[in-house]
């Protein structure tokens, strides 16, 4: 919708308002504040990690293989003598990237399909609903495995597979929310002011269900990270020697029995922390984007 600059009269800087509101929400909710800090830390690792790490994550050194954590290698080294700290930090970008793009994809496709299904009803609803039912009929992880196996073992296909398995969740939530709002007063009012159905869907319904979707996005981010790591763990998806949490856990698993616990522990911890962070983030995010809570 073309925003009219002349109409935005003396609005006291919207960005400033949002910031103030965010600070209020964070102050009242230390758990959310903590998850935000964690998110900032993870994003920092993803963006700056490769230039900050002490060692080349790919450089192997047979002499230093399987060393316990020490001052030089804080997280120890793996079976090829690579620095685990460096590998864990560098892997952040890939893991968060896969999760982010898969969630963005499923939000766009699943969210839109769901909103359309709820808003238009009839055949649109039936087609989207049956599609979601079909996807849900498979165990989700097995389906993701199948998608990657069929399409090929690339990062793009992991993104697509993760998006596919999350489709029903997004479609259903968006559908439910659109269904509630389909005949709300302001939607009727939008009809009266000459908005066509498609425009109402995009400019009236969709922005109003964004807060709910934002919470969902945050929650599925955690799941998407796990999914990507899980696929790599079983050997589908990212291939060694690329640093990736799932592979690192998989590689380290065989060393746990012989006492080299650090090889699997630290990437596992990173994975846990990331999932934990996004799960906590969900509720805080909703409070910030929901205009009802802004006064």
């Amino acid at each position, binding site marked *: 919708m073309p925003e009219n600059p002349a109409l935005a009269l003396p609005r006291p800087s919207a960005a400033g308002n949002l910031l103030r509101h965010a600070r209020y929400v964070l102050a009242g909710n230390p758990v959310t504040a903590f998850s935000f800090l964690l998110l900032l830390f993870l994003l920092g690792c993803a963006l700056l990690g490769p230039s900050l790490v002490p060692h080349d994550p790919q450089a192997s050194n047979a002499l230093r293989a399987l060393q316990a954590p020490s001052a030089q290698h804080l997280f120890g080294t793996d079976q090829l003598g690579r620095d685990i700290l460096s590998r864990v930090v560098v892997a952040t970008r890939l893991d968060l990237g896969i999760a982010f793009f898969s969630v963005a994809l499923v939000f766009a496709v699943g969210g839109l399909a769901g909103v359309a299904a709820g808003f238009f009803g009839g055949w649109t609803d039936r087609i989207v609903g049956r599609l979601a039912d079909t996807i849900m009929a498979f165990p989700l992880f097995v389906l993701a495995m199948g998608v990657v196996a069929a399409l090929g073992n690339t990062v793009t296909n992991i993104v697509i597979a993760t998006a596919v398995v999350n489709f029903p969740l997004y479609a259903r939530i968006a559908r439910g929310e659109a269904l509630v709002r389909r005949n709300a007063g302001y939607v009727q*009012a939008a*009809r009266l*002011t000459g908005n066509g159905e498609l425009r109402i869907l995009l400019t009236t319904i969709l922005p109003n269900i964004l807060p709910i979707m934002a919470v969902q996005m945050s929650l599925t981010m955690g799941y998407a990270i796990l999914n990507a790591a899980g696929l790599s763990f079983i050997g589908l998806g990212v291939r060694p020697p690329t640093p990736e949490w799932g592979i690192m856990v998989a590689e380290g698993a065989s060393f746990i029995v012989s006492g080299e616990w650090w090889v699997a522990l630290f990437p596992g911890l990173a994975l846990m922390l990331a999932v934990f962070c996004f799960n906590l983030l969900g509720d805080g995010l909703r409070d910030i984007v929901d205009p009802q809570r802004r006064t």
Partner: protein
Amino acid sequence: MSAVPLLDVRDLTVEFATRRGTVRAVERVDLSIGKGETLAVVGESGSGKSVTSYAVMRILDRAGRIAAGTVTFSGMALRDLPEGEMRDLRGWEISMIFQNPRAALNPIRPVGRQIEDVLLQHGQAGRGNARARAVEVLESVRIARPAERYHAYPFELSGGMCQRVVIALALACRPQLLIADEPTTGLDVTTQKSVMELVTELTRARGMSTLLITHDLGLAAAYCDRVVVMEKGRVVETASASAIFRAPSHAYTRRLMRATPRPGAGLRDLLPEGAAPFPPAPIPGAPLLVVEGLVKEYPRAGGSLLGRLAGRAPAEAPFRAVDGIGFEIRRGESVGLVGESGCGKSTTSMMIMRLLDPTAGRIAFDGEDIGAIPARRFASSAARRRIQMVFQDPTDSLNPRHSAARAIADPIRRLGTLRGAALAARVEELASLVGLPAALLDRFPHQLSGGQKARVGIARAIALNPELVVLDEPTAALDVSVQAVVLNLLHELKLRLGMSYLFVSHDLNVVRLLCDRVLVMRAGAIVEEGPVERVLGNPAAAYTRELLAAIPHPPA
């Protein structure tokens, strides 16, 4: 009134912790109810009347606390009572009924079982006789065929019936005090009358005391012994019901009474200071909207799918929400459409607004049959801008993510031609026309009061200079003083812009103020039609008389 009051509230102050510091919702409130007495607490929204009752029951939400004062209930200081004892007191000695009866009932349990639950929990019945007792209780609140209704789920009952069940639940344990928080808001006048009569009769028969919380001064005066008027958290006046109507002493009470629509008062009489009288209304011109044989049918649901599968044809005829009605609205005329909920008045207005397709009939607007254009394609019709609407709920009808300015500009952007600075100027002009300060244009709906939101809705409706405006209970969600201002505004705008109104309402007193002609609808059909003075002054149809009689009348 007995010497020792049943409930005695002294100096009650309730504070709420908000992000802008502490807010005093109730300040030094005194009130007392004697045994067998009915007391009304009257005030507009935000006056602290509900908070007072929540404080008495100690069910304030987490942010609220009783900062000072004492609450004594038959000798017990409720403020210091342990929570466990308080829990026993609630429902046992003090019962409460709320505004939305359907929300107060468990939707997946038959009402009879819900009554049984309460009886068993409080030891009023044993396993053996619980069912018989529950049926008795249903009978006592005058629910017809109580043995059958015992099995009914809340969604199968009407709003009035649900409220009766809630009353039955509240009274099941023979409490000493009943707190009724807006018990009839949202119910039709005839239902309101029977529910209120039931409450007063039952409390009288059982020697109970009642605290009625309401915004309706007329209701309070008609059914209560004494009235307490609250404004902004303070009690401004306490008097007997008849005295308060004869000689209200406080300025706020007088203002409240003035703003209440009543027979014999004109629109201007509702406003506090004497505004200039309206110029005489123009003689209505040629017919603008002609409705003929309008029908809306809905297929009946329930069981028909099984029947179809079994090869049995659905024998039931579809439900006729609107059953072949016809009327016309002339240019510059206000026509009222009144009736109780479910009579088809909203369906009719939706069809005229072209949000809903009629099953049969003609809707001719300025000679063109707009009823033939499907509702989904009407957005691009040339007639769209000429028919607009003001919605019932000002909160629900504004997009929570759009500012007031954007809401008002929306119709112009879509259907008008103004853009840029001219559009902004027009939005400000509209805002001043409806009396909305320009500084509020940047606010979002949740930052506006009910009256301000109503003004935004009106500004949006008149933005394109429509010829016909459908007003769907535009003041039902507003306080009386705000309603008075909005009604005056609507009439002013009509005279100024030469619009026609279709005013849909259940409130006959409001219709009397604003309309030239009135249509009374019942069960999808028009039962009476004529000039507003004649229909409301000397009704021909029995149903109109019934509606008029149900309006609460203060004691003479």
